């Protein structure tokens, strides 16, 4: 099988698997029990998921399975967090985060 056909197999199987995981609970809602304790477990999923999406890439850069601590990212994410908490503004958070990252990278490379 050529690399291109192999990649299409990857796309299609990944698409079907992902669709099943993201659709089944929405489709089955009302047909399977949704006990009150489940709500308690799911209540904090938005905060947990967003945190887990933020933290690793705010601390490390990685290539493959090798993770390296990135001080410029920690500084940039920390200041962006203060802006996010203060302003609750997405664009301000992005601007400060990227700005600090660039300045810090430039500063660290000038130092080292």
């Amino acid at each position, binding site marked *: 099988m050529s690399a291109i056909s192999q990649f299409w197999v990857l796309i299609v199987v990944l698409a079907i698997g992902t*669709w099943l995981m993201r659709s089944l609970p929405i489709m089955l809602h009302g047909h399977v029990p949704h006990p009150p304790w489940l709500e308690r477990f799911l209540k904090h999923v938005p905060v947990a998921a967003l945190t*887990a999406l933020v933290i690793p890439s705010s601390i490390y850069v990685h290539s493959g399975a090798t993770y390296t601590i990135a001080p410029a990212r920690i500084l940039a994410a920390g200041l962006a967090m203060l802006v996010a908490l203060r302003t609750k503004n997405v664009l301000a958070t992005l601007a400060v985060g990227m700005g600090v990252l660039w300045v810090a990278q430039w500063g660290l490379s000038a130092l080292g």
Partner: protein
Amino acid sequence: MRAGAKDIAPILVGIVPFGLVAGAAVIQAGLGMPEAIGMSLLVNAGASQIVATTLFGSGAPLWLALVTALIVNARMFIYSTSIAPVLSEAPGWLRPILGHMLVDQNYASTMTKGRFRDDVDVVPYYIGAWFALAGVWQFSTIAGALVGPLIPSSWGLEFAVPLVFLAMLAPALKDSVAMSVCIVTAVASALLVPLLPLQSGLVVAILVGMLYGAWRDRPGTEAETP
């Protein structure tokens, strides 16, 4: 639908670098524009697309690329279970489509903003937000396939992705329980993501935060939480 698209608008800026990286990854793996477009349309989940493409391009076996990407997407099963009651007014025929539309940004926007709005219906809100996201996602994946390989990696454009999630996270930290769930998940993800194999640290860290939150909210503790 317009309300959902409007609420998601500031986030769209953060999708662009993500799409650029995803599109560029497909070209760097030795594939072409049809694969870049097809993958974004059918898979519609950025992080898993980048992981699968990079592994494939580095010569990893097909099954490994597939299993890793599916583990990265396992969090969507938790999202789906969590958003299902919010979207319960949707008719049966629409639900398989709503499932395909479930992505991090749409989930977060609907769960932290849309469902609390009295002036709009949540199902059209969710659909509108997805159309805005998917349009920008498709456009920026194509742009990434065209020019992505020319962008120097030292610009760190992909850092815009966690920054957008950070901006969505801050308003959700409303009380001390949410704050402590955030801290516990932060520690768990910082430790587990580099350690656990096949990118499974992400979903395990979400589960740790979820279980900790459920434990904090266990019956009989209402008096403790302000």
